[in-house]
């Protein structure tokens, strides 16, 4: 199994969810994040002082996927997340050793 992690622009979440749904993936986990890369933040002003906020809000999506689906899934996410502007983010996958559904104790693909 693989764990696919995507760090993307927050307002793409709905598109990604729809795309995953269409692909047949019915679960995911989201956390709020922020990041920087080529895309830098903005300047804020505070009474006689200016400073740069260089972290930009992102969301971080995790999807557990079966080995065979994983590459295709990455493509699905990448497509749904893309706006073509810098700061679109990254997607990566990690190898998973075990995965369990807490409610039932099922392991492996059944856990999804």
């Amino acid at each position, binding site marked *: 199994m693989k764990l696919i992690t995507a760090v993307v622009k*927050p*307002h793409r*979440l709905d598109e990604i*969810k*729809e795309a995953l749904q269409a692909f047949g993936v019915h679960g995911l986990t989201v956390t*709020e994040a922020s990041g920087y890369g080529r895309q830098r933040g903005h300047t804020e002003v505070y009474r006689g002082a200016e400073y740069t906020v260089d972290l930009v*809000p*992102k*969301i971080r999506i995790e999807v557990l996927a079966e080995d065979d689906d994983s590459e295709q899934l990455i493509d699905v996410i990448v497509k749904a997340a893309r706006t073509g502007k810098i700061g679109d983010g990254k997607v990566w996958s990690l190898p998973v050793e075990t995965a369990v559904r807490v409610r039932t104790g099922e392991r492996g693909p059944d856990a999804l």
Partner: protein
Amino acid sequence: MASAAITLAAEAPKLSSANTGFMLICSALVLLMTPGLAFFYGGMVRVKSTLNMLMMSFISIGIVTILWVLYGFSLAFGSSNGFIGYNSDWLGMSNVGLTELWDGYTIPIFVFMVFQMMFAVITPALISGAIADRVKFSAWALFVALWLTVVYVPVAHWVWGADGWAFKLGVIDFAGGTAVHINAGAGALGVILVIGKRVGFKRDPMRPHSLPLVMLGCGLLWFGWFGFNAGSWLGNDDGVGALMFVNTQVATAAAMLAWLAYEKIRHGAFTTLGAASGAVAGLVAITPSGGAVSPLGAIAVGAIAGVGCAAAVGLKYRFNIDDSLDVVGVHMVGGILGSLLIGFFATGKGQSAATGVFYGDHSFTQLWKQFAGVGAVLGYSLVASAVLAFLIDKTIGMRVTEDEEVAGIDQAEHAETAYDFSGAGGGIGTSALAAPETKKVDA
């Protein structure tokens, strides 16, 4: 509540634009206390029941306002046999002239009615703090309507009605120590004995989700309370309202300091919640007594209330009673302390000539009267409120399901959550996916 009419010699009082204007502002101040209370309580609950807490106060404004105009004022302040009043002209305020004065005073009946309305609005709202996180909103709305009618209206009549038995007996309650605070506190106790504890009581910490919101509530309560207390003299032709004002400030400050000192000694820290709680305890205790005591007496009343209530709020863990936001510990205990301390500290130079044990001829007379008033209100409210809660529970049910309570009552009862701070503003945690556009059209 002014215990005696202010009449100038043999002249009938005339409409005073000064006192009328003052009382209108005081009424607005008292109205503001209920939103203030909503924030005070709303900040103290966990984030998942914030809105329910706010709504319990706001719905009380809605329901009580209407019922008060329709019949509440008539029953509470009409003439009577001592237990419950009635005046047909005041039903719906339909046969009241705009310049008809409140008997013996310089303000229109309309003004007195609306000032009293604001008291009736906040009293049931006070109860809501005890039942946080777990009561169906419709059950609460029904409770408010019934409680106003069956508990608040008669008790207000006893204590403030010209024919009320307690008023005639000489029980002193300047602005509502018995009618408002003991009444609400004992009512809260009655209700929670019926409905039981929150899921996780004593196990989970359940700490306040926003102390700044609590402090906002505290600040607005303190501010509005000046209208509540000083306004209760119904005018400023003499200095009694001003004395009440001064004592309100002094006792509140003393109680805040006392609670903080107690807490520092017991727990090692001066907490924000302690400051807010102490202030409210002081406000409660000075409410009945502030027209009768001197500023030094007010310091004593405040300090005693601060320590007394600080000690009282811990008892719920010992007795295993989930008075969620300490309505009993602060309002009932504070109201009792304030009412009884009149029996000790009344100087005879404020609202009336009655003196407490420490003044005048050191008689216990006033103290016994205070005991009578306290006991009657406490007992009646406790029993009647428990009965009401029991009846509602057996019919439409008082509590939400355990799952709803754990997930958060805001979602279950109000279809809302209090905050959405997500980076995207509506990005995470929300989705319009499943909401087809047609769902959004409402007409």
